């Protein structure tokens, strides 16, 4: 560690010691090690210091001290982010919120829960299960990821097609501003009198404030939920089935798709009964009253038959429904077993372009000599191509990143975006100019300045500098953006 940094670190340790118990300040390298990266381990960095406060007042003071000393602050929930958004800053403080793990209040009548940011996503649904309620957004990482991280990333899940993303399922957030001030945004009602700061905070990747409390909406558990699983001979039939479902006026609770590589990998891992000979698999969940669900299932089965599905199975009970989902939810780790490393992309495209884009991805992958497995939220066009690679092979990570970048640009060209739910972080910062003009990026910077005039919150992530944009455009990358933003 450079000597200047050491001085800052020692100074911070001294100041924080009066606020926090000694075991909540981690200054030694070995204990800091688990914090060096998030779910995207290709990007690592050691912080000056890790702090683990457990009261709002402590967070307030920590941020105020950092503001005064102009020290970067990176918030961290569970560190499951897939965009290096929670990667520490080498000259900054990593603010871990894991100790904020309490559910503060459940209001069964208003169907809301007031929770601390370090509560895991799944813990909320578990805490209200006896009330026949649940929290709808369900990222596959829900056992581990925190609700604070979900708000910071506007996370989605398989049930977001019908029930919306994090932004649709939260009412109020308490936060600490970059200057260490306490602020409540949103409300216990359905709107607020001033500007919708809650919308701005959701998905802001720790760049606009530290989230210290969240009120989430809860939904009544549907009377009945069933999954129709169908295998197809090719991806375009499955893509057409997705189109037919939506065009038929049905909004399933979830509509997920996997390609051949993903099907075989997850089946070997989860033994969910997936048809391993199929080249595309659809999982379509219907929920509602029992007779409603029955009626929908018949219609879905007919659509699948029309698209020549080779197998169709309907879950017969809750255990079987959970089993069908188990494969999907464990898809990332299952595919991870196929290869020493994998890289998860997150572009979104219009649903009608699914098969076209998938076949382009596969030819791009061939060109780079890499394998890609696809498992994704078909209902809302959110792709997750998983690029399999071996970081031990020289040049393979670089080729992977190159392919990843090309996939994201392909998504923008198809009328979509570079990230549907995982966020920009560091990982996709280079592709931001594919989606936005310099003027649009500058507008983002002005928003950032409004919240964080000293630029201490998660610097270097989310929004590229104009210099980064110029470098990107100098490489002749600009076509996707021109077609999209200024036509």
């Amino acid at each position, binding site marked *: 560690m450079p000597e200047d940094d050491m001085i800052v670190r020692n100074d911070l340790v001294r100041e924080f010691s009066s606020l926090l118990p000694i075991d909540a300040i981690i200054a030694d390298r070995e204990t800091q090690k688990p914090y060096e990266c998030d779910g995207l381990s290709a990007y690592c960095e050691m912080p000056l210091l890790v702090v683990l406060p457990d009261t709002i007042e402590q967070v307030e003071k920590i941020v105020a001290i950092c503001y005064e000393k102009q020290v970067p602050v990176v918030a961290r929930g569970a560190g499951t982010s897939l965009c290096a958004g929670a990667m520490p800053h080498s000259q900054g403080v990593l603010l871990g919120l894991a100790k904020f793990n309490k559910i503060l209040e459940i*209001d069964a*009548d208003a*169907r809301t829960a007031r929770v601390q940011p370090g509560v895991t996503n799944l813990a909320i649904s578990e805490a209200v299960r006896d009330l*026949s309620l649940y929290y709808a957004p369900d990222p596959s990482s829900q056992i581990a990821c925190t609700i604070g991280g979900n708000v910071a990333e*506007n996370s*989605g899940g398989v049930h977001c*097609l019908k029930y*919306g993303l994090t*932004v*649709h399922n939260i009412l109020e957030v308490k936060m600490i*501003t970059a200057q260490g*001030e306490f602020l409540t945004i949103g*409300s216990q*009602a*359905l*709107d*607020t*009198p*001033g*500007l*919708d700061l809650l*919308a*701005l905070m*959701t*998905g*802001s990747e720790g760049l606009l404030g530290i989230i210290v409390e969240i009120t989430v909406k809860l*939904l*009544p558990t*549907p009377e009945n939920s069933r999954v129709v699983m169908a295998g197809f001979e090719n991806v375009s039939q499955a893509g057409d089935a997705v*189109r037919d479902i*939506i065009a038929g*006026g*049905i909004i399933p609770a979830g509509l997920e798709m996997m390609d051949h590589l993903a099907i075989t990998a997850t089946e070997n891992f989860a033994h969910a009964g997936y048809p391993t000979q199929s080249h595309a698999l659809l999982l379509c969940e219907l929920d*509602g*009253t029992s*007779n*409603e669900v029955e*009626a*929908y299932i018949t219609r879905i089965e007919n659509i699948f038959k029309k698209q020549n599905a080779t197998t169709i199975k309907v879950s017969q009970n809750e255990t079987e429904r959970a089993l069908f989902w188990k494969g999907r939810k464990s898809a990332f780790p299952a595919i991870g077993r196929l290869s020493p490393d994998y890289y998860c992309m997150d572009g*979104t495209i*219009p*649903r009608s372009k699914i098969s076209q884009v998938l076949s382009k991805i596969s030819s791009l992958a061939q060109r780079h000599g890499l394998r890609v497995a696809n498992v994704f939220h078909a209902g*809302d066009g*959110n792709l997750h191509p998983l690029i399999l690679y071996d970081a031990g092979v020289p040049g393979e990570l670089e080729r992977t990143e190159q392919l990843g970048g090309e996939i994201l640009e392909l998504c923008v060209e198809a*009328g979509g*975006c570079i*990230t*549907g*739910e995982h966020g*920009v972080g560091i990982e996709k910062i280079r592709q931001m100019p594919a*989606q*936005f003009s310099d*003027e*649009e990026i500058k*507008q983002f910077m*002005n*928003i950032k300045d*409004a*919240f964080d005039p000293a630029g201490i919150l998660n610097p270097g992530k*989310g929004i590229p500098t104009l210099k980064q944009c110029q470098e990107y455009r100098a490489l002749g990358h600009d076509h996707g953006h021109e077609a999209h933003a200024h036509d």
Partner: protein
Amino acid sequence: MTDISAQLLAQVMDARSQKMPLKIIGGNSKAGMLARKVTGTPLNMAAHQGIVSYDPTELVLTVRAGTTLDEIEAVLEEQGQMLPFEPPHLGDGATIGGTLACNLSGPVRPYTGSIRDMALGVLLINGRAQHLRFGGEVIKNVAGYDVTRLQAGALGSLGVLTEVSLKLLPRTQQSMTLTFELPQNEAIKKITALTNSAQAVSGAAWSEGVLYMRLSGTSQGVEATHKLWGGETLASDSSFWSDLREQRLTFFSGDEPLWRFSIKPTAPALLDPNDMLVDWGGAQRWLRGDHELADLEKLAIKASGHVTMFKGGDRQKELRPALSNTHKKIHKRLKQAFDPDNILNPGSLYGWM
């Protein structure tokens, strides 16, 4: 079908160089409502019309901001689809841009969401006369800050909206309204109890001693819920919900100021129940009469919400509750970030921004 964005851009550029404020006008259907009085050169959006793209299988619509709700609703109806937030028009010629700027949604709002929830992308002209696109036409998009939803309720103070992309839904197969004669507080409790089960509710309102519960969904679902819940059925040609949405019920007649409470839905009656009308399953409550904002604010805070003077009254005064200093600071800086010369609908939201 005309695109007058070049002309709009030139007008904003002009206003900027002269530091002269602009008053953005859509269909002018919301004159004397929602916003404070704005003085400025009119910037007329109504001619900026037309559907930019609409593919029913995508359930996404992109339209120029001056397109009327009437036109949009007619086009969607042909395809068996709808705007999921049941927008109040509140007058002739209401435009989609104005509806987003006002964050206006109808009785279905607590159940399927607001226009803010359904907004996927916008094209806007900021106060620097730059034409910028945020969000897009896909349901999931977390690249950059959510500038799109920030426009909902900003009353044009952050940008001239020129294009809006929205998520759509298929029209529901069947609707039915059940009525129950109940005092207001009982009705609020009943709404809570009924909506705690996952039935397809699409509206819950109380007016003059009657609770109205609207169900929408498949015919099987609606029938089953009716059997379960009982209650009288409202004639299928009743105009109750559209009269409620368009503020045509007798409750809304006359010139007295109209106050809107946006509160926690389970809060008990705020004042004499006979003076109030309940919508949004209890989360939106209307009051008529001459009152002081500060007095009503106390009631609203007790009910974990806020109150605004929605219509009528003196619209040069502040119409919304005072914000904390930290809020005020961030609001001012955000206004600066979009509109450094304060030329876009100055004072529409608060006198100080």
